[in-house]
């Protein structure tokens, strides 16, 4: 068991996510940075998609009721056991009565805390992930609060496992996010389309599990007679399904990337979709991160996907044979 002494800014139970209910408005949820989720789990000997704690900007303070092995991957936020620092991306033991807390965030945005045995909240619709908007899954369908007690599953990890440096993501204040154009990008005028790809966008403080909003320029649209049911604004469409990672541009300003707690549909033009693997990069963007959208085609997107798969395979090899 783990007792939450301080919840941090917004800490939720997340795993690999749930499929099959997006058609009724229930999004996949799960760790926004799926690579770091897997790394943290492999470090403590869990299945790669087990439930962990996702901590945003400011970590929680947790008291362990029993011995366990813990690892923290993702954002740079130094873990401390009873005030003593431990390395990130490396598994370490905690004993009954130990208190785990975190130093300040120095890179990235979201840290993932894996505990051997996994966070053992009940599965809802096949996943332990929290979907707070729908009060579903995780711990009582919400972010953790002071005094919460979390069950931990059975499992024993090995302390001292380390993720190789070359398999850890680098966090930068300026990032490139690869996208596939499409969806309603024909609503953009040629200069609007060019501006979308040429602008260095700045992430606003509106950056949560639902979506990430960016500041930059207004995008020029093509004139039209609004189709029946679409609404008058040039950015309106007849309410349509939103892909995870799709970039919508309400009012033709401030693009929003929908992440894994996405609203499942709505009436704003989407002009591109972030590659599934690059959603990890978005997840680790803190406000003010300068961001460029780089267009790729399907073949390139599948090549990126294969590279990522290979990287995960190497990580798995490094952490299960060592």
């Amino acid at each position, binding site marked *: 068991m783990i007792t939450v002494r301080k919840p941090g800014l917004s800490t939720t139970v997340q795993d690999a996510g749930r*499929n*099959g*209910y*997006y*058609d*009724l*408005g*229930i999004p*996949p949820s799960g760790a926004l940075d799926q690579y770091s989720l897997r790394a943290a789990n492999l470090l403590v000997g869990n299945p790669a998609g087990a439930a962990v704690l996702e901590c945003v900007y400011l970590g929680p303070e947790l008291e362990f009721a029993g011995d366990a092995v813990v690892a923290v991957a993702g954002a740079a936020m130094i873990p401390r056991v009873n005030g003593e620092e431990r390395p990130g991306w490396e598994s370490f033991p905690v004993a009954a009565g130990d208190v785990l807390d975190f130093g300040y965030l120095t890179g990235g945005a979201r840290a993932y805390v894996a505990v051997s045995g996994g966070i053992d909240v009940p599965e*809802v619709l096949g996943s332990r992930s929290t*979907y707070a*908007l*729908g*009060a*579903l899954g995780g711990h009582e*369908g919400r972010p953790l609060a002071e005094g919460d007690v979390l069950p931990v599953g059975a499992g024993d990890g090995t302390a001292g496992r380390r993720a190789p440096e070359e398999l850890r993501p680098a966090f930068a204040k300026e990032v490139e996010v690869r*996208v*596939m154009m*499409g*969806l309603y990008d024909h609503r953009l005028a040629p200069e609007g389309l060019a501006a979308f790809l040429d602008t260095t966008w700045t992430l606003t403080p509106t950056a949560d599990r639902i979506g990430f909003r960016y500041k930059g320029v207004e995008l020029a649209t093509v004139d039209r007679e609004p*189709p*029946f*049911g*679409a*609404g*008058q604004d040039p950015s*309106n*469409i*007849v*309410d*349509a*399904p939103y*892909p*995870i*990672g*799709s970039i919508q541009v309400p009012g033709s300003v401030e693009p929003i990337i929908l992440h894994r707690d996405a*609203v*499942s*549909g*709505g*009436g704003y033009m*989407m002009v591109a*979709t*972030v*590659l*599934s693997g690059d959603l990890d990069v978005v997840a680790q963007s803190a406000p003010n991160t300068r961001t460029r959208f780089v267009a790729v085609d*399907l073949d390139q*997107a*599948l090549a*990126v*996907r294969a590279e990522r*798969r290979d990287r995960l395979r190497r990580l798995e090899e490094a952490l299960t044979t060592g």
Partner: protein
Amino acid sequence: MTSTEAPPARYSWGGDEHVFVELAEEMSLTANFRAMAITTMLREQRPDGVHDICPANASYQVRYDPDVLEPHALLDLLRDIEKQVGDARDFTLPSRLVEIPVLYRDPWTTETLMRFRDRHQDPDATDIEYAARINGYPTVEEFIDAHAGSPWFVSMVGFVAGLPFKFQMVPRERAIIVPKYLRPRTDTPKLTVGYGGCFACIYSVRGAGGYQMFGITPAPIYDPTQSLPDFTDFMVFFRPGDIVKYTPIDRERYDAQVAEVEAGTFRINARPVEFSLQAFLDDPDGYNARLLAGLHE
């Protein structure tokens, strides 16, 4: 059962894990019904690697794993199903007729809308007074008669968990149209009966929203704890393809139904029906009259 009358769909990749398909740029029951027919057929065939099949108003999307299902193979399958479905006029959909009680002009949405008059087109009127006026109804009562008089087709479920979008089953010239708020509110009571563009909705959870607020229903439509009898099988009540009839109720009836919800005994009045697009299009008023007559049989 093929037909070539329907305009060709527009296919787009939504990144590496989605195919997005727009059946028509404008909203119509025909476009929606094609989305239902295509996604129903796809569900029956459901190839490995498909995660989510999401029908929407005049479009749909498929979320899938391209490592399991080759993207072009999926695209070919979707195009093939589109051809088979054609204009979907001879497709019938097993549906439910669902009665939703509504307390129009209730105190809670009224209090909320008063807090956000600075975001509204007509700060001196309530949302329903504004909607009645711009749709040419002399009184709010006549507007409510129209809103509660025709059935509504659930054309999409989503935005947030379990929220139904509903399209009015009337010829287009009689359809109620109300623009959304100028700027979205930061608050909407749970179970608000709302309206935006050509769509009615019911807010399944409390939260931000831009739709006009006409009233509130006592009937729960989303229950993540699955404690109420309507939610034994699943936590979301509505399915795309359901047909809804709003029934105006007074405060006394509302309070009584809320008490039933709290006692765990409330049931939504719902009964199975078959919906045929062609029969509806041939005679909308006659079809609706026959349909609604079945509600209290």
